């Protein structure tokens, strides 16, 4: 069973909108440029299928989805650190080279 077959097997019309929204988000995640977003899409799809195939129960599915939410927070924190570290290295490098070498060569 794949995810489309699973979604098609849900006949409750009250869930039509949720099914469409789920598919839209899943497609967006899997088409994202970042490996992390793609991986998240693949994991959510895998876990939903595992639940449908009774390999994990509802509580376990909820725990895994919650786990991914916390990993995502960690990922975003790391992205923040990486971005600021990169800027910091450039700015400190610029200031250091100016102080250490450039000033001496400027004839004023």
């Amino acid at each position, binding site marked *: 069973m794949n995810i489309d077959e699973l979604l098609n097997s849900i006949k409750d019309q009250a869930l039509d909108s949720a099914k469409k929204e789920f598919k839209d988000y899943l497609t967006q995640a899997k088409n994202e440029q970042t490996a992390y977003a793609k991986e998240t899409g693949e994991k959510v799809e895998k876990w939903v299928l*595992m639940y449908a195939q009774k390999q*994990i129960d509802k509580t376990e599915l909820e725990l*895994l989805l919650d786990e991914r939410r916390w*990993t995502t927070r*960690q990922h975003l924190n790391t992205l923040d650190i990486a971005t600021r570290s990169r800027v*910091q290295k450039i700015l400190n490098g610029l200031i250091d080279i100016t102080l250490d070498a450039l000033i001496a060569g400027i004839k004023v």
Partner: protein
Amino acid sequence: MNIRTHPTRRITATLVVLAAVALSGCALFVSSYDTTNFEKLTSLKAYHLKFIDDFTEGKGKSFDRSALDKAADVGELKFREAEEYAQGLHDQTRVTGVQNLHGRFTAHCNTLKRSNALFHEEFSKELRAEIGNNYDEAIKGEKVRPGAPGS
């Protein structure tokens, strides 16, 4: 010689001020790589993954509440020590990373305590991979800091 009028000294003074701002605790800047924090994160990862392994169904294994309480206590102390250490480095991004992992460990202990049962094998395999990802992200957060080996 007046610093206000001498061009070289004026430039130097400006750059010194810029450097001071850059290296102060300004929110834009992150603290440098810390070997001890890196080691604490890798040690916590090993402990947490073994904890999950120990409390997963397997041949001849049964749920042991006293063993769980003991492992939870040992882990709690390790996480508190790591959090205290991170707080001492005065960088909220580092504290946030450790608190996230501490929260996951507490949640996993509580799940086991509520269910009074070991983790199912299929679930445990996924949980292990996922919490491993969380630790890898936190460890990467240390390794991308200025001054990290190979940076």
